[in-house]
């Protein structure tokens, strides 16, 4: 599928955050890069349907996402968090395989509130990858990850990007290079 963003504008209290943003993104990774406070997260929020643009249009589709914050249910364990989002659609074998790839298989059933920052980030990525969607939005998904975990996450994102558009918000040029991503600078 192809995502279209056309002439998108957004301002908060008269201060323009997004000015005439236009791009298209097909299957593969598209990196959105810009200095802090220049509307990257606002752009994702508009695409996810959480905010309205002042003008312009975006393709409407089923999204899944890794938010800037982990947004996991702290009183549930890893599998329960996945079941909260996926319900009966949760394929436990596929979930276990992905959890294992991202070193999350052996969490001993402990609740997410007891996870480290890196574990929460990886679980948020697993959730986004397992949820049925047409496109994937990832807002700084590698925050708090060590090199090894970052490499594993890059690999699973690259696999997902073969089947759907992946929009990745990052500060790191290296991420874009490793993912062969199209770069859009706001």
């Amino acid at each position, binding site marked *: 599928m192809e995502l279209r963003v056309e002439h998108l504008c957004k301002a908060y209290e008269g201060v323009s955050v997004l000015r005439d943003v236009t791009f298209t993104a097909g299957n593969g990774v598209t990196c959105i890069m810009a200095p802090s406070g220049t509307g990257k997260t606002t752009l994702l929020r508009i695409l996810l*349907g959480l905010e309205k643009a002042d003008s312009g249009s975006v393709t409407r589709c089923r999204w899944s*996402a890794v*938010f800037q914050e982990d947004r996991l*249910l702290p009183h549930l364990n890893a599998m329960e968090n996945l079941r*909260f*989002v996926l319900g009966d659609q949760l394929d436990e074998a596929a979930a276990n395989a992905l959890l294992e790839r991202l070193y999350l298989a052996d969490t001993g059933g402990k609740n997410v509130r007891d996870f480290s920052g890196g574990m929460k980030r990886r679980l948020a990525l697993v959730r986004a990858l397992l949820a049925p969607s047409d496109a994937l939005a990832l807002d700084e998904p590698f925050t708090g990850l060590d090199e090894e975990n970052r490499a594993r996450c890059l690999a699973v994102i690259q696999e997902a990007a073969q089947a759907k558009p992946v929009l990745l918000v990052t500060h790191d040029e290296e991420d874009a290079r490793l993912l062969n991503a199209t770069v859009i600078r706001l």
Partner: protein
Amino acid sequence: MKKATAHNRIRLWAVVVWLLLWQGASMVFARLWPHGHLLLSSPVEALTRLAELSVTVAFWRAVGSSAAHIFGGFLLSCALGVVLAAASACSCAVQELLYPLVAAVKAVPVVSFIILALVWLDASQLSLFISALMVFPPVYLNVLAGIGSADAQLLEMAQVFRVPFSRQLRGIYLPAVLPHFRSAASLALGLCWKAGLAAEVIGLPVGSMGEALYNAKVYYETSDLFAWTAVIVVISLVFEKLFLYLVDWTAGKAVM
């Protein structure tokens, strides 16, 4: 702070000291005035009277009748409070409509409501109405605050992932609301017994605990008064413990 909390508990030795003081005061009253024992009966007399009362059918009938009315009012109000708090969370108009009512119930003395309700209602229904009225504001306001405290970021996440409302309810709203509801229920259970019995003492429904308290006052039966008061305190505590246990048990099953 921890030290202060540790000393803020009921200790057996402290209870014994207060009982001894009560016994001493009652003996002084009896010695100073010819009918001093009528003014302040001793703890032993109160306990003996309680034992005598507890083997009568009238005692259990009064306990059952008052408990059913007061706890019935509590349950009705809890249900109404939860439903209207949910409606208020969905609609500002409902919240604005209910605000003056809640403010009035909080501000107006309970005795005014009791006398007003006596004009409208049969005395037997008075305690149910008054206990429901007193329970409504804390339950409604706390549940509304609990709904408002649900994590907005988690709700956005659920929206993006198209999580059905029933699952949002169990995973996000219930964990947010339950601590608020629990503390409201604990407060309201104490309130409903106090207000409900005050209503019975004024309305005097036949065969109620309120009527028994009133008769104790009329006939200077202070041992009856203490016996009934002890029963009320025990029932109130038992109902609170049971209800909160039920809330925790249900929460354990319902929360995802």
